[in-house]
């Protein structure tokens, strides 16, 4: 006689939210950005996207098989890592770069820590940084956007941030592109990696995530706020040398980072105050690297650094427990 009834500890009902659904929502939210990148960079972009996603799924399956664990590609996190990685690569990336990145992201970025939920760093960013350091040439050969149907061959170009850095280094002042062309930046008509192009598409995706309550306001607001504040202060100090905050916002991977990578749940604090600190930290480091660092772009480094600080932040931002005056840390 097999038992019929289930018993468990309370509660017996559930909100219906699931890890899969969260991952799926984030993937949906990234679709506009993917579409824009394919529009501007053509089949190259599509290829990079497909390679990264396929690579991540394969690497994930392989890791699970090797560890004799149930294969977890169904939870969508590997696919998401793949998309995020692709959005961090230039459209001109060779195929091996994409695959190698995918392998790094899933193995070193995630599975060595024990899989989803245990990784300390954002897998896609780990892979990006590893690639950036190992293959600087391939990782920084940008092409100018080349909308589908324009019939022109892809030409090499610099990203606005790269242009800025070179100009500041050579001439000691900002290039003209740092003062105009914001409209183009907003819709994505500039050189950069797949996901760095269109602010509009990213904001659309972010709006969807907010509506679905997948992400909360703390990290985006504090991150953007601190970039604006810190970037703004520098601009006020010397507007010839430092670009205005809007330029910071619209160029490079900032928006992608803010809404899709700095909000990655696994690698960010779980407490509200922790999230705020995390966002501010990311913002400050990003601007520091952009203005004073050796690399033109600092989003990935900033987020990774703060990822590393997350356990510490969590430890010291414990909320005040109801009914307790003070809590020990």
């Amino acid at each position: 006689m097999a038992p019929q009834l289930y018993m468990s500890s309370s509660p017996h009902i559930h909100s219906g939210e699931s890890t899969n659904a969260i991952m799926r929502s984030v993937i949906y939210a990234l679709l506009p950005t993917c579409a824009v990148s394919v529009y501007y960079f053509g089949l190259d972009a599509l290829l990079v996207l497909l390679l990264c996603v396929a690579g991540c799924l394969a690497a994930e399956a392989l890791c699970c098989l090797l560890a004799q664990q149930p294969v977890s590609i169904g939870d969508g996190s590997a696919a998401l890592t793949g998309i995020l990685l692709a959005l961090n690569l230039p459209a001109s990336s060779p195929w091996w770069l994409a695959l190698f990145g995918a392998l790094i992201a899933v193995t070193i970025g995630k599975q060595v820590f024990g899989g989803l939920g245990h990784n300390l760093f954002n897998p896609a960013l780990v892979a990006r940084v590893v690639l950036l350091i190992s293959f600087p040439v391939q990782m920084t050969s940008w092409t100018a956007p080349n909308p589908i149907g324009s019939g022109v061959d892809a030409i090499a170009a610099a990203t606005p941030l790269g242009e800025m850095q070179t100009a500041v280094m050579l001439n000691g002042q900002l290039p003209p592109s740092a003062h105009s062309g914001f409209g183009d930046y907003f819709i994505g008509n500039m050189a950069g990696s797949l996901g760095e192009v269109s602010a509009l598409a990213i904001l659309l995706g972010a709006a969807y995530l907010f509506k679905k309550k997948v992400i909360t306001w703390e990290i985006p607001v504090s991150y953007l706020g601190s970039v604006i504040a810190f970037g703004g202060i520098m601009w006020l100090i010397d507007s010839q040398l430092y670009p205005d905050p809007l330029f910071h916002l619209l160029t490079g991977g900032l928006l992608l980072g803010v809404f899709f990578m700095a909000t990655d749940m696994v690698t960010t604090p779980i407490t509200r105050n922790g999230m705020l600190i995390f966002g501010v930290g990311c913002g400050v480091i990003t601007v520091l690297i952009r203005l004073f660092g050796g690399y033109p772009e600092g989003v990935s480094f900033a987020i990774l650094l703060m990822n590393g600080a997350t356990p510490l932040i969590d430890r010291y931002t414990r909320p005040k427990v109801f009914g307790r005056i003070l809590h020990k840390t």
Partner: protein
Amino acid sequence: MLTAVLGLGQIGLVAAIALGWASKKFAVDVDARELAVNEVLPGVNCGACGYPGCSGYAGAVVKEAAPINLCPPGGSEVITAIARIMGLEDDVTEPQVAVVLCQGDNRKTTQKYIYTGMHDCNAANNIADGPKQCPNGCLGLGSCVTACPFDAIEITADDLAVISRERCTGCGLCVTACPRQLIRMTPATATVHVLCNSHDKGGVVRKYCEIGCIGCNICKKTAPEAFKIDQFLAQVDYAHDDDAAMAIDKCPKNCIVDFNSTYPDGSKFKPASIQPPTPACAGKDLP
């Protein structure tokens, strides 16, 4: 390039000097005996002695005259060794192994309900006294596995805990972890056990378990010295268990097991006496 090498070299030098100075300055005087005791302890830091790790216990033995027989994994060898170091009389305890007194896996027993939730026996046991119909049987959720520092316990595919006699060091941590008190420490020399823990009447046991002791007395009749029946449950009297093996075939419910010749169904552990055949030899024999 050169600057980098020199720079790193300098850092290394400074750090080395600092470390050397610190080790002198902050050196702690350690009783030589404490080091020696620490040396003979197994070094697994299992905590079974009740002190923080092996070195903690070593310190306690030397400074606080803690009993020298608190290290179950070390067994008698360690006790003798500590006794020699400390100049104490050897008071050796008999080596023990833990035995799970149940064979009722999911195929052989019935469940009251389908449990969902935390994968832990103690947690499950709090919900209507556990999902198993048998009030004393193994829940198979592995609280003992978590407690065992030596990886000596497995949960079979049908959710039964089995302890390897080779890996078990007799530390006893699993005994307290089990909410149903069905793990018992037994002398390592005793290999025959009645693998049942249910004191229910035979008729009741039959209803929920195919392989539970029904208290029929047959084993006791076969080997009167070796068995005692306590409230419908046969138990091996480990003080006089010489004849216990005689009853194995007589038991109508097959609940007497000799770990020398077999382990419970589905276990990946094998008796020490049965060596797995080595395929390499088979090949070599061919001309």
